[in-house]
């Protein structure tokens, strides 16, 4: 587990970068360090990575810009943001541009390593194809999990990384109940600041995309006191 996974550490603080490299290599990861945003994008263009650990305050191009650039071409590529900015607004800004997780400096080493493991585990799970193909069709709608592009009631659009993860989990277990706890664990990695209500909000949003009548859903069903169930061929 974790062997030979490739991590790109984007950090201009040389001491921190060196310490992160040392620890991640000890955990069996292959680590490359980039000192600024532009160098990070160059590395990402030239090589394949499984995760980017991205500092927010970077010379040449800031972390937020780098994350936006990554998301332009890859909806789901795992990003762990690291920053000395620790307010709620900073965290929200980081997550809004598509970071999978956000860790404020100074951080605890075991927590960082656990978060890296969690993100990589979710990435592994996400990479598994649904029904041997990237695009899943239901009715006249479809979702491409590779690009995040989807067709809903109002036409074609892009799902956010977390929306894509929720749909993927529901579709992988179609016909079976997926509990809120399972959704939280797999999509949010049990972030202590995420509440089960967040899952409900995401489901409400997804119903607006894919259901003709969101109040009377036919694909994404609520199973009382348990969770949610995806029904690809509704009886109606």
């Amino acid at each position, binding site marked *: 587990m974790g062997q030979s996974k490739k991590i790109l550490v984007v950090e*201009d*603080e*040389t*001491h*921190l970068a*060196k*310490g*992160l490299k*040392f*620890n991640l290599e*000890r955990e069996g990861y292959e680590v490359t360090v980039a*000192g600024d945003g532009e160098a990070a994008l160059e590395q990402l263009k030239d090589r394949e990575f499984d995760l980017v650990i991205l500092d927010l*305050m*970077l*010379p*040449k191009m*800031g972390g937020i810009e780098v994350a936006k650039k990554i998301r332009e071409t890859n909806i789901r590529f795992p990003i762990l943001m690291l920053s*000395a*900015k*620790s307010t709620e607004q900073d965290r929200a800004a980081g997550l809004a541009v598509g970071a999978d997780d956000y860790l404020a*400096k*100074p*951080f*605890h*080493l*075991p927590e960082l390593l656990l978060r890296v493991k969690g993100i990589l585990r979710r990435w592994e799970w996400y990479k598994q194809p649904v029904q041997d193909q990237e695009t899943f069709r239901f009715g006249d709608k479809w979702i491409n999990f590779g690009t995040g592009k989807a067709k809903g009631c109002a036409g074609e659009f892009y799902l956010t990384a977390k929306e894509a993860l929720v749909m993927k989990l529901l579709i992988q277990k179609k016909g079976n109940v997926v509990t809120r706890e399972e959704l939280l664990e797999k999509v949010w990695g049990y972030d202590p600041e995420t509440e089960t209500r967040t899952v409900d909000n995401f489901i409400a949003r997804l119903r607006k995309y894919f259901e003709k009548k969101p109040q009377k859903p036919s694909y994404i069903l609520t199973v009382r006191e348990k969770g949610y169930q995806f029904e690809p061929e509704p009886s109606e």
Partner: protein
Amino acid sequence: MNKLRALFHPIIIFVGVQIAWIILMAVWINWYIKNSRKFQEFAQKFRPDLFADEFNWLILLEGCFLMLIILAGVYMIFVYWNKQANLNRLQSNFVSSVSHELKSPLASIQLYLETMKYQEVSKTDREDFVETMLTDTERLSGLIENILASSKFEPGRMQLQVQPVEMEEFIREVAEGLKRQFEERKCQVNLELEPGLALLLDKRAMRMVFNNLIRNTLRYSPIGAPLTIRMRKGKKYCEIDFIDQGIGLEKKDQKKIFKKFYRVQNPDTQNIEGAGLGLFISKEIIRNHKGQIRVASEGRGKGSTFTVALPLGKLKNPGSPSEQGVR
């Protein structure tokens, strides 16, 4: 709600008051000119002694004067509000920069301590980690010193403990203290120092100045860019140049960078650490030594040269430290 708040913004209120004042002034002059004749005729029926026959300029001017006083009052309030708002903005920028400045070395120290706690570390790595942590503690202590020093630079509050300092040796010593930072940034340092120069300096304060200037050079230069420190004797001053090949400075920023909390705002530098204190403190220390600090740069991307000019003065007893207050 935001629109309502924007409506009550002090600038909007200030502009509103100006417009209201101009209208009021116009109405007042217009009313007075139109009605003064009638007013006089009416008053003459009851108190003819009160009014002269001709147009009374005094009353018109009194009215205008009163309105001018109101305008001046509003203007004063606006000026002070503006100053306060600027101070609040600078303070908020400062807190944000300082917290970042404090957290980065702290995060590094914590990471290395936890590495030694949770991982098996070889003796060589352990020694390297300790050295790294020591550099981080130096960075922290430099920042704390800067913050403390910046609060002292009010007129008349600075007390220097001066002593004769052999400059060549002193600058070599400062550069040696930053050896690790030079290595990390792969910076080649060229020292071109005229020997045999001794000055009366507060050694601790001057070390802070040189450290600030050198650290700035490292921050604002690409990895591998060299630094030249050149010291020469002039007629009245000893001039020390710090010549870098960093990102340089535009003309408009060259004076402003010595202001407290000022930081150059552009995409190249927005993510570079700094609290906007180092150059302000350096300028104050140099000024208290009766010296000068200036910067020359041909523009963005062309490097910059910071020059510290310190008065040569006369050493009474070279070699024997003496304490003396310079103000």
